[in-house]
């Protein structure tokens, strides 16, 4: 066929040689593995394994500190005694063991789960909103969940053990509604500029906080004091029953998110690109909204408003292990857990014997970092 093709060929076209596929694959895989250009299973194991060890060490270390310092040896013997028979009898005779088993251990475990889920929610929101600065607290998702939980408390739902799941459920509905509202407010012409998201978050936060304060003002003063303490962010949990239920939420939600890891990688390029790469964006977006609100609801119902963990931790983890969500999600979970356990230890000890709310510690460490990123690294995020 006499097409103008030959005529069109560029003058100096020297053919670019393509070597055989499998050879390239094997050599390239080795090269990329060595240079750290891509995430491999071996690297995943190394990262997650070392983070597991470090977070276990941090938790053990933090168990020692509190109003009274309990030696690591005593702490460990109390923990091991717990698993043996008659643990409660022995624990009852030893003050250190009682503190360890009934105050510090549940608190450290709660802190770990709360910090881990906040970090994981942050990662999910960042992928969904395509901005590494997204945080459930800043964007008003936590306030929405807190309003839901406050309403449940106002009407006395969930005060009895039988209604326990009611609090996270109300938190979930509140979080989902405010997340949806933020998304609708901030989105313009298919884009989500960070300025609009922050503005929407600020306004939602102001309105939702006003509603929560209204609820506290019409409540019986004794109960409203408890509500306010919870709102400021606290990791005190009344029983192992609540703790294990919370753990179920967290593990379930986080594993479902992990199953979306590669889709989240692709979503960071924007919805149009994600779609053209083969992702059913509308469906995935709904799933991620749902999971983010579910985890936020569960976290807020347990620990109130703890801010900035969802932004600070993923950001630091990304710098250490890269952006691939297959490693970013579990690594952020572990690092977030560690971070909050450490922050809570500071909150418990800095003014001992009195405590300050852990939300203050995270806001005072995370807030400045957020401002720094927003002011001096603006080009990357706006």
């Amino acid at each position, binding site marked *: 066929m006499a097409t103008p093709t030959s005529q069109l060929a560029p003058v100096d076209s020297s053919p670019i040689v393509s070597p055989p596929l499998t050879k390239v694959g094997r050599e390239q895989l080795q090269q990329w593995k060595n240079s750290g250009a891509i995430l491999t299973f071996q690297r995943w194991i190394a990262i997650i394994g070392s983070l597991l060890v470090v977070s276990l060490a941090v938790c053990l270390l933090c168990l020692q500190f509190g109003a009274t310092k309990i030696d690591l040896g005593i702490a460990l013997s109390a923990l091991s005694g717990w698993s043996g028979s008659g643990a409660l009898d022995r624990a009852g005779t030893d003050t250190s063991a009682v503190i360890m088993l009934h105050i510090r251990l549940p608190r450290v475990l709660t802190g770990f789960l709360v910090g881990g889920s906040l970090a994981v929610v942050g990662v999910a929101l960042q992928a969904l909103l395509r901005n590494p600065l997204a945080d459930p607290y800043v964007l008003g998702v936590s306030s929405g969940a807190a309003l839901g939980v406050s309403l449940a408390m106002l009407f006395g739902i969930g005060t009895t053990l039988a209604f326990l799941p009611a609090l996270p459920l109300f938190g979930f509905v509140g979080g989902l509604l405010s997340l949806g509202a933020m998304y609708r407010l901030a989105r313009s012409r298919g884009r989500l500029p960070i300025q609009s998201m922050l503005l929407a978050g600020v306004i939602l936060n102001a309105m939702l906080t006003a509603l929560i304060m209204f609820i506290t003002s019409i409540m019986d003063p004794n109960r409203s004091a408890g509500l306010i303490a919870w709102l400021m962010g606290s990791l005190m949990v009344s029983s192992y029953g609540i703790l294990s239920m919370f753990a179920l939420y967290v593990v379930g939600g986080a594993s479902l998110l992990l*199953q979306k890891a590669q889709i989240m990688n692709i979503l960071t390029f924007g919805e*149009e690109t994600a779609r*053209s790469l*083969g992702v059913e964006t509308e469906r995935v977006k709904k799933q991620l909204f749902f999971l983010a609100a579910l985890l936020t609801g569960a976290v807020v119902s347990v620990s109130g408003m703890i801010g900035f963990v969802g932004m600070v931790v993923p950001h630091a983890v990304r710098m250490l292990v890269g952006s691939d969500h297959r490693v970013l999600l579990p690594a952020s979970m572990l690092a977030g857990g560690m971070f909050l356990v450490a922050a809570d230890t500071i909150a418990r000890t800095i003014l001992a014997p009195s405590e300050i709310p852990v939300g203050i510690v995270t806001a005072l460490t995370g807030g400045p970092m957020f401002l720094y990123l927003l002011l001096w690294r603006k080009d990357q995020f706006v």
Partner: protein
Amino acid sequence: MIGSDRRQISSESSADGVAHGASRFAYEIESVRFRYHAGSSDGADWVLDDVGFQVKVGEVLGIVGPNGSGKTSLIKILASILSLQQGTVRLFGDDLTALMPQDMARLIAHVPQDTHQSFPFTVAETVLMGRFAQRRDTLWSGGFGWEDEADIAAAAQAMATVNIAHLAKRLVPDLSGGERQRTVIARALAQSPMVLLLDEPTAFLDLQHQIDICRVIRQLKEERGLTIVLVSHDLNLVSQYCDRILLLDRGRVARLGSPDEVIEPGTLEAVYRCRVLVDRHPDTGLPRVTVPGRALSGRT
């Protein structure tokens, strides 16, 4: 004028003596109308109005036209990113709207105009994401599987094709505009598509890289038989490197044909509403566009 141009297209294809069969065309676009705000009632704001043409299998088609003529909207419709209000688009004989995203991503790769990325992925990771639709791990589909050797090889080959193999470890937000552009083209090639859609592929590139990309486009057509549709502002690159050119004017097809048929002063001046000079490229003999300079416009 528009009607006569479309007669010209159909007479051209029938002159080849080949019947209109599904296999001959990558795309068949029929009387497509599109606007962004589907709710508005008056018909004045159609971005694309009664657009119809075919893209032959294995050709390089360049879409040109003034700002706001609907080029980007048209290529987004071909990529199934935008959905049209009227008309049909068939891809290898099948209705485009009936395809699932994953099936579509194996047939079409789209390189968008905006390649912004705030997340620090490496170049190699970014290119590997092009393999998503080709991967087979169904249980953890999209979740937790690992790329195999074939995926790595496809990504490596795509990177070698656009000369970014040395950038594998670099982070995408740190790249220059041209490097990022080539990374996104490599990601598209890693999809192993049949059709490649490029929106302003040379917009951020210096002269050398523009020519590199254009050579890659010809190479992909000739070696892999890829069908390529590209949108560009650069009439000269389109004239030198495309088999056929589609000229859009305010959402309508002003002309479709070979560079010789489209890149000629009368047509261009009517569509772009300014004077242009067209002569011949000294090496290829293909039409070359020049805008009038100061001294020249004073003289004539």
